[in-house]
Every structure is written in C-alpha cells, then in structure tokens.
C-alpha cells in the first residue's frame, strides 16, 4: 500500500521534473529540475531494494555532478536561447520519431516481454553494500580497475582543457 503510493508520488515528481528540464528557458532552472528527478529516482531505487545504488545516486549525481553543472552554468552566465533555423531535419522528424520510439518500447514491454514480477518493498534484500562489494571486487574486478583509470584520464582531460593558456 505505502509503496504503491510512494511509487506514484515519486513517478509523478520525476515526470514533472523531467518535463521541466526540457521545457525551461534558463539552464539553471533545468539543472534544478534535474536534481528533483534524481532525488525521486533515488527513492524509487530504495523501493526496488537497491540501497547502495540509491545512496550512490544521491551522493554522486546530486552532490557532485549537479553541483558541477551549476558551477559551470554560473561561470558561463548562460542566458536564454535564441531561435535557430538550422537543423531543420531534427525539428521536423524529431517528434514523430520520439512518439514512435515510446510507442514501440511500450508495446514491447507490455506485450513481448515475459511476465514480470510485482515489486514489493522488502521482498528482496540483496542490494546491500556487502553484496555489491562482493561482486565488484571478484567478478568485476577488471572493469573496476579500468574505471579508476578512466576517472584519472577524465581528471587530466578536464584540467588540460580548462586551464588558462600559458603565454
């Protein structure tokens, strides 16, 4: 009962905030809406029994990535957009393709996939940090190490791209 209500509330919040991301004029409003989406998604993760992922979502996305976005928006003083006549193909074909996309996927989910379980909060408790740690450091050890190298490269790239020119 409670999880159903919670799901509906969080879903509505996520969708509304999602629309907001797309429809707002100023980027800062879009960024804040995105934070709303991420928060509601975190709750949904909790409902699905993914404790670690929910926490990681809040910390990494909400706490780091979105803060970074906000910093950059402030730094660039990005204003509202102007209309453009280029990319006519995107403007014309984009909506129909999107609708078709949603339609096909919805159909696939409802009709083609095998019967799915119902989600009951607490019916599965295998998403703890312990479980993730066990899998992460045994089966997925190599991707884990590679990911760390990736982060290093990203740091170096970001520093190299954004630093001042040496004159």
């Amino acid at each position, binding site marked *: 009962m409670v999880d159903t209500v919670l799901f509906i509330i969080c879903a509505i919040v996520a969708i509304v905030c999602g629309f907001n991301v797309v429809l707002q004029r100023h980027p800062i409003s879009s960024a804040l809406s995105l934070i709303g989406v991420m928060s509601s998604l975190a709750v949904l993760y909790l409902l699905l029994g993914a404790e670690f992922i929910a926490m990681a979502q809040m910390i990494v996305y909400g706490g780091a990535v979105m803060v970074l976005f906000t910093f950059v928006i402030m730094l660039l003083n990005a204003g509202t957009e102007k209309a453009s006549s280029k990319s006519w*193909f*995107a*403007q014309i074909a*984009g909506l129909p*393709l*999107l609708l078709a996309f949603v339609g*096909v*996927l919805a159909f*696939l989910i409802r009709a*083609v996939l095998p019967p799915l379980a119902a989600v009951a909060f607490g019916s599965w408790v295998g998403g703890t940090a312990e479980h993730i740690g066990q899998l992460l450091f045994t089966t997925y050890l190599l991707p884990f190490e590679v990911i760390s190298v990736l982060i290093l490269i990203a740091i170096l790239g970001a520093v190299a791209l954004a630093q001042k020119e040496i004159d």
Partner: protein
Amino acid sequence: MNLWLIPFFPLIGFFLNGLLGRRLSKPLVNLIAVGSVAASFVCVLVVLSKLWPIDNTYTEHYFTWIQSGFLQIGFDQMLDRLTAVMLLIVTGVGLIIHIYSIGYMAHEGGYYRFFSYLNLFMFFMLLLVLAANLLVVFVGWEGVGLCSYLLVGFYFREDWATNAGNKAFIVNRVGDFGFSLGIFLAVATFHTLDFGKMAAALQGMPAEVGFGALTLIALLLFVGATGKSAQIPLYVWLPDAMAGPTPVSALIHAATMVTAGVYMIARMSFLYNHAPAASEVVAVIGVATAVFAATIGLTQNDIKKVYAYSTISQLGYMFLGVGVGAYSTGIFHLMTHAFFKALLFLGAGSVIHGLGGEQDLRHMGGLRKAMPITFVTLLCGSLSISGFPGFAGFFSKDSILLAAYGHAPWMFWVGAITAGMTAFYVFRAFFLAFFGTYRGHHHPHESPAVMTLPLVVLALLATFGGFINIPEFLSRSYPLGYQENVGRMAISAGFGILGILLAYVMYVAKPALADTVKNAFGAVYTLIFNKYYIDEIYQAAIVKPLEGISRFVLWHGVDEGVIDFGMVNGMAHLVRGWGSLFRRMQSGSIRNYATWVLAGSLLVIFVLGLVGGGR
C-alpha cells in the same frame, strides 16, 4: 641426334647479328649470317647421313608444351623423306642466297638488320619443316609471315615498302585465320595434332563422301595455304612484295616460304586422301590460279613483277599436283621451282644491280654482251621454267601434267596452255632484257663473283636437277599417281617451245609486232595489264567497308561513345551524383546527427524486439 641444332644455328645468327650487328664489322656480320646457315646445312647433311636410308619416321620430343584435358601437344620434331627433301632445299638454296646477298646488299643501309631478319626467317622455316604436329607448324607458319613482313618492308622509310609489308602480313593473316579454324576443328575431331597420331586414326577408314568434318578441316587448312602460297583469292600480296630486296624475293617468295602451303598439304596427305572434295577444290584452284597469273604475267613491264606472277602460276601447278593426289609430283616441282625461280630472281637482281636499280624491261636491252654470266645462267633458268626437254622444269612440270591428265583431262589441257604462256612471258622478259639495243641511261656491268657464283650453282641445279628422281624417292609414302606417256609429254613440251618461238618472233625478230598485238587487243589488254582490277575490287568491297566500320562503329561508337562516355565518365557521374546526395547528411549540426541516431536505434529496437525478440 639433336635435330634441334638445325634451326638453332640461324636463331643464334639472328640474335648475334640483331643485337650486336651494328658494332660488328661487315666481314664478321657476313661470317655470322652465312656461317650459321652453312652450319645448319652441314647439320642437315650429317643427320641425313646418319639416318640414311630414312625408311622410318624419326621423331624427337623436347618438352610438353600444352597439357590441357585430353589435349597434349609437345614440342616435337620429326624427320622422314619428305622432311629430308625440304630440309635440303631450304638450307641449300638458303645458303646460296645468303652468299649472294653479301654482294647484292653491299651498298645498302641496314646491312646487319637484313641478315638478322634473313636468319630469323631460316629459323622459322626450318621449324616449320621439322615440326611433328600442326601447332609447331603454325608457329613456323606465323614466324615466316612475320619475317616476310619485316623483309618486304625492309626499306621502311618508303611508303611503298611499308604498304607492301602491311599488305603481305594482313592478307596472310586472313589465311592464317582459316588455318587456325582448321587446327581447332582438327583438335575437336582427332583430339591430337600430332601427324603420326592423326594418320593412324584415319588409317583404314573409308574416304569421306560429300562434305563432313574431314573435308572442312582440309578446306580450312587450304585457306591458310592460299594465303601463304599466294593462290586465288589471297595471292594479291605477292606482286606487291617485290618491294623488298631481290634476295628476299628469291628466298622467301620463290623458294621457301610460299612453298609452305604445298608442304603442309603434302604433310597432311592422309587427310586429303580421305577428303576427295577438298582435294578437288585444291586442284581446281591450283589450275585456275596457274592460268590466271600467267595471263597477267604476259603484260607486265617490271621484271620482278613478271617473275612474281610466274611464281604464283607455278605454285598453282604445285597445288594442282597435290590436289589430284600425286603429292610427290608437287614436291618435285617445288624443288625444281626453288632452283630455277631462285635463279631467275637472283639473275634479275644481278641485272638490276648492274643497271644501278633499273627494274623496267622497257629500259633494258642488249645486256648479253655486258653481263655474260648473268645471260647464260638466266638462259638456263628460263629454259628450265619453260619445260624445255631435258631441263629440270621439264621433268617436274610433266609429272604434274601427266598426273592431272589421269585425274581430269581438261586440267591437263589448261596446264599445257599455261605452260606455253609461261614460256612466252619468261622469254619475253629474257629477250627484252638481253637482246636488242640498250634503251637505258646507265652503264651496265657484270656483277661481282660473290653474286655470279651462286648464279652458276643454281644454273647447274636448274639444268640437271630434274634427274634427282624425287617421286621415286618419296614413292614409299606417296604413291606415284601418274603414268608415263610420251605423247602427252611431247604435247606439253611442244607448247613450251611454241611459246619460246612466239616470244622470239615478237621481241627479237619483229619488235613492232608486240605493239600491234597490244593495240589490237585494246580493252582486253588494259584489263589484264591492270591485274583484272582485283586489287581495286578488294579495296572497294572489303577494305573500305572494314575501315568504315572500324572508324564509325568501333571507334566513335563503341570506344568513344560507350566506353569513354558511358562507362568511364558515366561511372564518375554516378559516383558524383550519389556523393552529392549523401553529402547532405554531413551538415555539421549535432541535432541532426542525434535525430539520425534516434531513427537508427528505433529501427534496431523494432527489428530485435518484434521480429527476433520475445525470447
């Protein structure tokens, strides 16, 4: 035994003279050229002495040339009595002519080139004669055609020479096309091209009635022979080929190359024995060519042209001989013809050399005092070709005519009349050149010994060569085919003597008579003098249409229109068109790219989900 040495020496001569001749001294070039042919001749004598009395066919196999399915063709050489006769003729007469050429070409440019080509010709001719299967014969066949082209067009800076060379090669090519078709058909019929194997396959089979595969092969091979040996309809190149130096005319267009067709038919006698329809065609064309060419020879003013038409006519006799089944008579006449025709041409060359290049009979005369040796030797040659009793030509021509009589009497009569015409025009040339007063502007002098000595040797052969009884020598493989009949021999000899007397009357006793006769015959004379306008007919009916097709259909139409414009440019237009179409996708706009990605992923999801999914 090393039969390969026989053609090998001239080949070495060709390479040495061809590659190094420019830097060698003239005596050294002479030594290489004449020495290689002499070595070849000695080799022939050695081989013959070892194999005497040549009762069996001796073959040598060198390597397998073609191995494809059922067809196996080796590079083989063989030697039997027919080959022996041909080898002696080719190397012997060739040697004599090489020695003569030293004197004749002494003041010409391109000296070493001449001898290297001549050696190359000897190589190919010997290859042809020694071949043991039709394909090696064809190699030699084509090779002598090539050398004919090179040598006829020897004075390549002159248009008339290069045109004559082209004509010789191209007309030969038409004949060679027929020859190739004959070879293909032979492969299909016999599954081999080896002479021995083909003969064994046909042994015991009855002769073909009507028109079948064997007749077709025989006729196609004969088409090649008409090209190479200048018979109707492909004889037109031989008179033009007189553009080459006179030793070339003697060696190639009298003694050896043009006889390749006769040799080929004699070699394939087993085939022609089984295809009587083809043999009939050969004989009829032979006798027709003989009389046709003789009539043209009556009117010509260039001494070499007279002898050229005489060659065509005598070749007609040889084909008559082999066509009626008396192969040995054709070969006999081939040998004696080699002697007296080479003699006639070399003698003409001596006259031309002594007159500083004059070839027109109307500007000669009274040369018998200035050039005595040439006079005597040419007399021997002329008597021989006229069939004067006792000379070589008498025996060989009579054997052919007797064999023809046994086959069809009308051929005998036509041949006898032609013999009379032959005697007439040969002696017309002889009298015009050596009797009367000199009508030219040069100082005639006798030729040097290096030229007159070969003339003497050939004169001896032309006089006494008839006593070499070739039909007897070849009778084991080629039965005699004629009966001796003194009456008919007398008739043909009589025609010959009549011709000589008529020529004497018209050109020595009463010179004005010739012009009267010419005016009396008026239009007929003009027709014959212009060679029946055959060259003009060929030009209009065959050459011009072909040229037109080549230019308009093939060049402008196919090459420029279809290939250049349609395929090459068209491909470029096509690529450019599609390229400009697809270029629009690279707009630089990221949003467009994203939309394309969306469309593509939608397609993938659709396919995977609905078509391949549900698993």
